[in-house]
Structure formats: C-alpha cells, structure tokens
C-alpha cells in the first residue's frame, strides 16, 4: 500500500506540473490586466510603470519560469488586485467554501441515500415515482435559477432565512465556522441546499439502482432463506454492497461541489473561494486564477487517492497494488 501511495503521489506531481503549463499559458494569453488595474486618469508613464511592475513586459516563457521558481518555494505570486500572496488569499477564503461544500455533501447523503433506498425497495409505490420524478428536476434545472428561486421563496416571500451572506462565526475545537451558530446555520441553509440539489438527485439515483440490483442477487435470497431480518439484510448486507459506487461518485463529486460553488457563492454572496475566483476572472487577476486552478488540481488528485483507499476498506477484494503495470 505504501508503494502504491508513493507511486500515486509521483503521478500527481506530474499531473500538477502539466496543468501548471496549461493553466499558466491559458490564463496569460487572454486579455490585458493593465487596463483593468490602472486608473483611467493614469498617463502613459503610469501605465508603462504598471506594466513593468507586473512583469508583463517580459516574454511569456520568462514569466512562466519565474512562476515555476516561485511555485517550487510555495509562492504562487501576488494578486494583482489585492497585492497579497494569491495562495494566502485563497486559503483565507477556503474555510467558507469548505463548510458550504461539506454541508452540501452531508445534505446529499442524508437526504439522497434514504430516499434512494426507499425508491429502490418499493419501486412501484407512487411516492417512489414522485421521488424519481423530482430527482430529474434536480438534474436538469440550472443552479443559478434554482438559487434565485430559493431566495425568492424562502427569503423574500416567506422570510424564513436571510437571502445572502455568511452569518456569525462560532468557535468549536478551534475551528471557526458559521456552522456553530444559529445565525450561521440560517445563512448556510439556502446556499447549501442549492449546491446539494444536483448531488441529492445523484445519490437517489445511484442508491436506487444499487438497491434494485442487489435485491435480486443470490446473497440476498440466501440471507432471506437463512431467516435474517429484512432490516439486517438491507442495512448490513445490501448497503455494504451498494456503497461502493455511491462512495466513489460522491467522493469525486465533492471536488465538483467545490468547483460548482462558484455559481452558488456568486448568487448568495458567500465569501468563499468560488466568488474570489469569479471576481479574479472578471478583473483578470491572473495569479489568483492560476493559484486557484493549481489548488483544484491538487484537490482532485488527492480526492481520487482517498477514494481508492476507501475502496479497499469497503471491499477487501480490492488490493491497492500496481494497477498500472
């Protein structure tokens, strides 16, 4: 297993390096950040000074080498707009996004799996059909539209929860999060639900399909014949078997939860990395965009690794060995 992990980490390094090439050049050929920064009142000398200060007068390969040199030392460059290290900015915004993504993941599992289980066990029940029909909506409606509708319904019409923003932060075990205050929870409810909607539908469909398949399997019949209670059959034997695809997909989707949070954070004015990224893209704050993408690459690589390790725990047949060779 150790060899496997080391090998995977080396592969990850290669992926990160290749991505840095693609991301850096991709971001640096678009637009001209100078005119996004200097005041309109600036004269030619001011503009020339800004170009030089940002290093944009150098050839692009030289800029890339400088970036690589910095990156090797953990410095992904300073934000053009905030003047602070891009990495630091992203890390400052990360907790807000993480709590949103984790809450959304929790909601998808807590709502999606029970509903999927029900729909799988009683496929012909009208409630199950209702669940499945609603899950199609979860897949097909655009996030930003659903977000606005949620705000209109729960905040403007009903007035139950606030429309936008992140609430008061509370401290628990040294972690500061809006999950630890009532105000914070009321603020996170709508954005987390909005973000989770797609994943809830996904969890419902995966669980249902898994349950439907498993219920016809020999081991279930055997367990029945042996006289095990239905509860034990479902929650111990069936669940264990259907969890593998669910864990894989949910694990991988956690990355996309963070990625998709861009839309949700913008609509709900949630001060996370996604909003930082959107602002950085609009204002051409290149170092922040590059740093964000690099971090996301790292994330996906790590999540993949963790999912692989979880496999082996859930299914002893999976051996973490050289699958490549």
């Amino acid at each position: 297993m150790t060899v496997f992990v080391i090998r995977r980490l080396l592969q990850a390094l290669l992926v990160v390096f290749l991505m840095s090439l693609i991301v850096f050049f991709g971001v640096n050929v678009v637009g001209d950040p100078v005119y996004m920064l200097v005041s309109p009142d600036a004269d030619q000398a001011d503009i020339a000074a800004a170009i030089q200060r940002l290093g944009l007068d150098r050839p692009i390969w030289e800029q890339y080498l400088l970036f690589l040199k910095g990156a090797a030392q953990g410095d992904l460059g300073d934000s053009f707009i905030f003047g602070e290290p891009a990495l630091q900015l992203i890390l400052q915004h990360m907790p807000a996004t993480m709590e949103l993504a984790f809450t959304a993941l929790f909601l998808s599992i807590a709502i999606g799996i029970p509903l999927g289980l029900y729909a799988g066990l009683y496929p012909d029940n009208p409630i199950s059909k209702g669940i499945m029909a609603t899950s199609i909506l979860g897949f097909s409606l655009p996030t930003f539209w659903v977000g606005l509708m949620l705000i209109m319904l729960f905040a403007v019409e009903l007035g139950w929860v606030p429309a936008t923003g992140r609430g008061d932060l509370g401290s628990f075990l040294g972690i500061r999060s809006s999950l630890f205050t009532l105000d914070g929870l009321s603020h996170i409810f709508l954005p987390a639900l909005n973000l989770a909607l797609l994943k809830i539908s996904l969890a419902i469909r995966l669980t249902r399909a898994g349950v439907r398949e498993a219920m016809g399997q020999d081991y279930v019949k055997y367990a029945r014949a042996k006289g095990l209670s239905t509860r034990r059959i479902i929650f111990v034997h069936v669940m264990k078997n259907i969890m593998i695809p669910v864990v894989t997909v949910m694990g991988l989707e956690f990355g996309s939860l963070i990625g998709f949070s861009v839309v949700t954070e913008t609509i709900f004015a949630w001060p996370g990395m996604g909003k930082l990224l959107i602002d950085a893209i609009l204002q051409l704050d290149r170092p922040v965009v590059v740093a964000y993408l690099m971090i996301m690459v790292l994330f996906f690589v790590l999540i993949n690794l963790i999912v692989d390790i979880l496999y082996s725990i859930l299914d002893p047949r999976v051996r973490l060995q050289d699958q490549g060779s």
Partner: protein
Amino acid sequence: MKKMTKATVAAASILALGAGAVAAEKLTIGLASEPTAMDPHFHNLGPNNAMTLHIFDRLVDQNEKQQLVPGLAVSWKPIDDLTWEFKLREGVKFHDGSDFTADDVVCTVERAPNVPNSPSSFGTYLKGKSVEKVDDYTVHFKTAEPYPLMANDISTIRIISDEVGCGAATEDFNSGVAAVGTGPFKFVSYTPGASIVMERNDAYWGEAPIWSEVEFRPISSGPSRVAALLAGDIDMIASVPTTDITTLAANDEIQLSQGVSNRVIYLHMDQFREDSPFITANDGSDIKNPLMDVRVRKAISMAISRDAIVDRVMEGVALPAGQLLPEGFFGVSDNLEVVAYDPDGAKALLAEAGYPDGFQMTIHGPNDRYINDAKIAEAVAQMLTRVGIRTAVETMPRSVYFGRASRGAEGDLPEFSFILVGWGAGSGEASSPLKSLIHTFDTDKGFGSANRGRYSNAETDALIEEALRTVDDAKRQELLAAATESAIENVAIIPTHFQVNTWAARKGLRYTPRTDEYTLAIGVTKD
C-alpha cells in the same frame, strides 16, 4: 413674532428628540462592487475611494455634485504662480484622539504615491508636487509650473494619521490598526467578501451622521442584491439593475433615488490610420479610412438618435449627451446642444464626402463595463446601417476589450476602428476628459493617454494646454468650454448619453445621488 419663535423652539426640540430616538440605528447597505482594501492610498478605484471616505477626510471635499468644498482645509488659494496655500481646520481630532495638524498632511502626501504593490497609485495626482509645512495649520503645495487644478488633485487624497497611519502597511489598514482617520465613521471590522462594519464618530467635526452603525455587504449579483433588499436583509442597495427599476418603482415598500453621473458614454473613431483595420468598402475591398473626413464623422453623429438610446435601450434612465460632461459641471459649454437626429442630413453629408452608398464597419465595445453597453453598441450599429454604413457589432468582456482597444495592434496602437467607451470625470471638471480623451496622444507630456481614436488638432490642443496653465477660475472655465466646443465641432468623439445611477432603499430612506457614483452612508437620510 414671539409666537413664531416659540413654535420654532418647539419644532427644534421635537427634531432634537427625534434625533435622540434614532441615535442607536443601524444601516445596512448592499454594494455591487467591493473595495480591495481599507488603505485609502492602496488602489485608486471607485469602490475603494467611496469606502475610505467614511473613515478618512480629504483637505478639499467634493460635494454630491463634485463641486469643491472645504474639508480638512478651510481655505486654499494660490499665493504665487507656483505655490498654493492651504489653511487647515483647527480642533479636528483623529479617531484615536490625537490632533490633526500639518504633519499629518505632509506624511500623507509622502506615503500616498509610494504604497507597495499598489495596483493603481495615487502618484497620478501628486506627480510634480511637493508639500511643505509652514505652521501647524498651514501647508504649501509647490509645483514647477503654474498649476490650476491643485485643489481638484488634492481632493483625491485622504488624510491619514502621522502617528499610526504613515508608517503602516496596507494590511494594518485592513486589520483596522492603522485605519484611524478624522471621518464621520470609525472602523469596526473588515471581512473581505462578507462585510465592512463601522460605527459613528461622535467627535466628528462636521455634521454628525444619523446612523450609529453602518454595515456594507458586497453582493455582486444584481438579482440577489435586489432580493436581499426585498427580503428586508438590507436597507439600501447601490447599482440597481436597469431591468429591475420599473418593478421596484411600482413597489410601495421601496424608494428609488436617481441622479446623473459624471460618466459620458461616447464613440471613439480611428482618425490616424489611412487603412483602418475594421473598415472596408461595401464589396469588402480596402478603402481609405472615411473617418478621417470630418463630414463622415458628423454624418455618423447625426445618424444616431440619442433619444432612442435613452428611451429604448436605457429605459429612460440616462440623459442625451452633446458634450463631455452634463450641465452644471465646471468647464461645460453653454453653446453646445445635443446633436439632433437627422438621418436624411446624414445621408446627404455621406454623399457629399464621397460615400453615397456608405461603407462597411465594425463597432467594438465591452459587454460588462457600462450599463447596457452591448445593447447600446447594437442600437448604434442599427442606426448607422439605416443611413448606409453597414455596421457589424462585436462586444467582449472588459478584461479583453480595454487592452485591445488601447494597444492591441502592432506597435501598441489601438486595434479597433470604431468603439464604444465611457469616461467618468473623477476630478469633476472638464479638463479630465479633455486632457485624456481629446488632446493629441503625447507620451512625453502625459496627454491623450485614453485617446483611442488618436484625434489630433492643434487648435484644440492649444486651448486645453492654455486652460491647464490658467489659474484664474473664470478664464479657465471659458478656455475649457472653448476647447470642448472645438473638439465637438471637429467631432473628436461622439458623445451619446450620460449615465444615470439608481439606488434603492426601503421605504422611509432616501439617498442623495452623487455624480461620482459613490455610495456613502452619510448620504442616506430619513424622510
């Protein structure tokens, strides 16, 4: 008479009681764009300049119409050709209790142009100026040449404290340690992306604000901002999306405040290239750039219906423009009218210039910078096509657009032939657009830096330069007006309209609109 006095006293005491009752009130404002720092000298950018104005004061203040009024300086005047004397306000205290004196001014002027990592420095306004303390409440600003716009330039600089501000880094302002000013509000907290909180400065030298606490929340998405206001989460929002103005105006719970801004939206035309890249004959072959002919430029101006743009595209929320700034601003000409819509006259002029069948052209514009920018470009293209200039439209995000429009072609020249742009006169008078948009592009003198059409006219240039040397206000005003007339007569640019900004507040609150587009808590009053 006596009765009257009594009544007045009674009214005054009721007012005073009323003021007492609102003493502990909190105001929450939703902003479209967020400041990038609490350091008043870090980034010369609208949202930053508006936000820091709550905490810090300037020597010379700009009122809601951008007229210069006394701030921390009570008076200013040139004492010789090269020196301006500013008399400072006495008895003003910083939030930490220390006194405001000339030392604070001197150290501010030294720090402002030299903030590390500043994306856009205030050095632009302090170039070529030096400051000298005469006594505790008098400072002299010196220049190498006569400089009439001293007070305008100084009105962009926020004064920080000698003791805690001048040696501080931008992070110290963001954390609040150095965010100590003389302004109407004191810094409480700054959480980037989430909120900025301030409390009333009870020792403020000017009129005390009616709000005991103010919170600003950045909500960049327009519909969400409106929804947050409707939900009652916030009391007021800036930058109401034009599509929501009609619905909000019909809502009894909401009150709108609108006011014209200092921002003119205009068309710039390539006037320096014989073969302009985005202009061809009707059959697609190359032609000599028709925009070099003043008759063609005039025809284009006549072919554009400003009223249609204002009524249809802007839904009535804009003013037709005939020059660089709306009336009321310093240096505006009284002789210029909005060019009348005259498609037949435009066709006749085009025929006279040798283009009876018109030509082909592309208009380029941004699609995320000005209110309805892409739609305006489309409307202009349709109007021009109607008089025979078949115009295609290409719009792009501002991050791509401005770079290409300014220096996208070979040799750092402007890339496009015909563009839609806007200009906000930060100084609040006509020399700002004249200097940057109209004067010949001249790197050495620092003029024409935003002259993307490269209009160049010796007569206009001479008038602008003379105005910029003339210290006498009345004379300068005349020269600026004359320069504007010369530019508009030669169709250096084609102004279409002035932007009107809209704020929306819950019922009972009103915002005094500002031409500089700032959203200030002191401008929010109760009915």
